[in-house]
């Protein structure tokens, strides 16, 4: 018999709708997985066992009464711990916020509750989604390896089958990086698609909240449940939330997919990932898509531009806190926050100029080449051992793993465009990786459609993390 936790979110949802399983059974299955994996993986900041059981019983009663709100009703979801949850401790991985009890839900959480989702727990993150993660959350694929951050607990929990889906946040890749490392589907949607009201900020002009799941359809359902305009949020977009699944199975015949090679297929791209992503490109051609080679030299300044913006904006948020609670910050976080205060305003604005330049260039490429999406690897490496993150890469390429991990992801935050990581391989060391699809503003539906066309031809998403199988 299939374990309930082996069901994807959408499969569990279908069974709930058909009366073949209850929300309480799904919650209990997740709690058993938590009991089994948490002693070694350490994905959760707080496990909401009693609250989840109570919410599941309410959901089951409503569904039994014929009042099913939608596909997320009764589905257990984990929430990154930098996202406010009313009456539930939210600490953002920092001693600065120890014991903090929000008196309201972040809009994305309120939307999920309205859709009937069940909160199974708060998931660990790097301190303020910037700094340390101690003790370290461990990769379910290899306990000695880094599972990707800053949504580090979100990726590890969904992989550990202790949650059917999770919310992450992404300022420079923090949804897509752990999704790639954990063999998950992760979406950084268009800037403003999901409100950041009630999310502890990293950088206001770059922050996103988004879903991390096992399959594309799961991801589309979860995004639809959390998205929507929030008038209290000046970054929130007045855009209707479409049915992201409506055209999911329409295929890619005639789709135009852009591929940039100078930046994304650079010498630092590991050969196994290069070969797999080339195979993805070939697969899309076989399925009827047209591959368009594009040039985007402005990509070269995206990393420095994003770093500069993050430093200036995050230090502005922390300006009072760092003076009141300096000793409570981990030294690595404190250094980032302090550094931002030393950056001249002219540098921040120069970075915003660089951002404008890049946004103009990528939007021009989309329109002039009539592209539906762009495609590249999510990361140039799979991951790295926890104790090697800041050393030079073991394969000899002169970058640190941490630097490599965000090489391919910053650009989408700068442009504000939707970007989705999709599993596409497992390397010779047994570590998964993904490719990334970037779409036009507010056209997540097309991104999902193109991603699903690949996913339904492959079974990468069915591969399970071996390091936790024998626990």
């Amino acid at each position: 018999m299939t374990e309930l936790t082996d069901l994807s979110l959408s499969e569990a949802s279908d069974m709930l709708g058909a009366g073949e399983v209850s929300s309480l059974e799904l919650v209990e299955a997740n709690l058993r997985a938590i009991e089994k994996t948490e002693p070694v993986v350490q994905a959760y900041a707080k496990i909401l066992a009693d609250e989840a059981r109570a919410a599941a019983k309410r959901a089951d009663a409503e569904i039994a009464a014929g009042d099913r709100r939608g596909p997320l009703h009764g589905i257990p979801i984990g929430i990154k711990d930098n996202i406010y949850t009313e009456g539930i401790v939210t600490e953002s991985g920092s001693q600065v916020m120890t014991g903090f009890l929000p008196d309201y839900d972040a809009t994305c959480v309120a939307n999920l509750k309205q859709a009937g989702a069940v909160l199974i727990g708060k998931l660990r993150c790097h301190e303020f989604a910037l700094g340390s993660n101690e003790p370290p959350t461990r990769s379910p694929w290899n306990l000695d390896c880094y599972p990707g951050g800053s949504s580090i607990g979100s990726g590890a929990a969904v992989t550990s089958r202790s949650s059917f889906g999770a919310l992450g946040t992404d300022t420079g890749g923090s949804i897509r990086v752990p999704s790639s490392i954990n063999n998950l589907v992760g979406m950084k949607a268009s800037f403003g698609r999901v409100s950041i009201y009630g999310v502890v900020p990293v950088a206001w002009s770059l922050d996103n909240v988004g879903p991390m799941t096992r399959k594309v359809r799961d991801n589309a359902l979860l995004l639809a449940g959390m998205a929507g305009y929030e008038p209290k949020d000046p970054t929130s977009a007045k855009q209707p939330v479409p049915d992201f699944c409506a055209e999911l199975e329409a295929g890619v015949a005639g789709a135009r997919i852009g591929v940039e090679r100078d930046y994304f297929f650079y010498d630092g791209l590991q050969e196994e990932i290069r070969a797999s992503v080339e195979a993805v490109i070939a697969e899309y051609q076989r399925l009827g898509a047209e591959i368009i080679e594009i040039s985007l030299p402005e990509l070269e300044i995206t990393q420095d531009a994003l770093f500069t913006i993050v430093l200036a904006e995050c230090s502005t948020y922390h300006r009072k806190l760092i003076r009141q609670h300096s000793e409570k910050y981990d030294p690595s976080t404190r250094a980032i926050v302090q550094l931002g205060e030393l950056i001249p305003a002219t540098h921040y604005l120069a970075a915003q100029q660089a951002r404008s330049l890049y946004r103009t260039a990528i939007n021009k490429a989309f329109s002039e080449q009539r592209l539906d999406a762009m495609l590249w690897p999510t990361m140039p490496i799979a991951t790295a051992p926890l104790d090697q993150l800041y050393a030079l890469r073991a394969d000899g390429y002169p970058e640190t793993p941490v630097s490599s991990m965000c090489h391919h992801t910053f650009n989408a935050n700068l442009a504000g465009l939707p970007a989705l990581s999709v599993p596409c391989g497992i390397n010779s060391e047994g570590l998964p990786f993904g490719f990334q699809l970037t779409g036009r503003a507010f056209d997540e539906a097309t991104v999902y459609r193109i991603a699903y066309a690949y996913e339904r031809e492959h079974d990468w998403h069915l591969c399970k993390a071996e390091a936790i199988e024998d626990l």
Partner: protein
Amino acid sequence: MSYGRASSDEVLEPGIVLALANKMGLSISPEEAETLTALLMNHLAAVDSFDAFDLQDVVPTPIFRLEASDD
């Protein structure tokens, strides 16, 4: 101890960073000042990379509300 930029002879003294940070109300130790100085030098070099492109007439427009027409 000084930190030089790879492409020039310019240096920044950690003592200056320490004094500036303390003046701004940031509590940092001399050791942290050395770390901050190194990070700041890296940042200064990074910003130089923007000069590879002509930003003279580019208006900085941080996204604070993305519109569908942006595509």
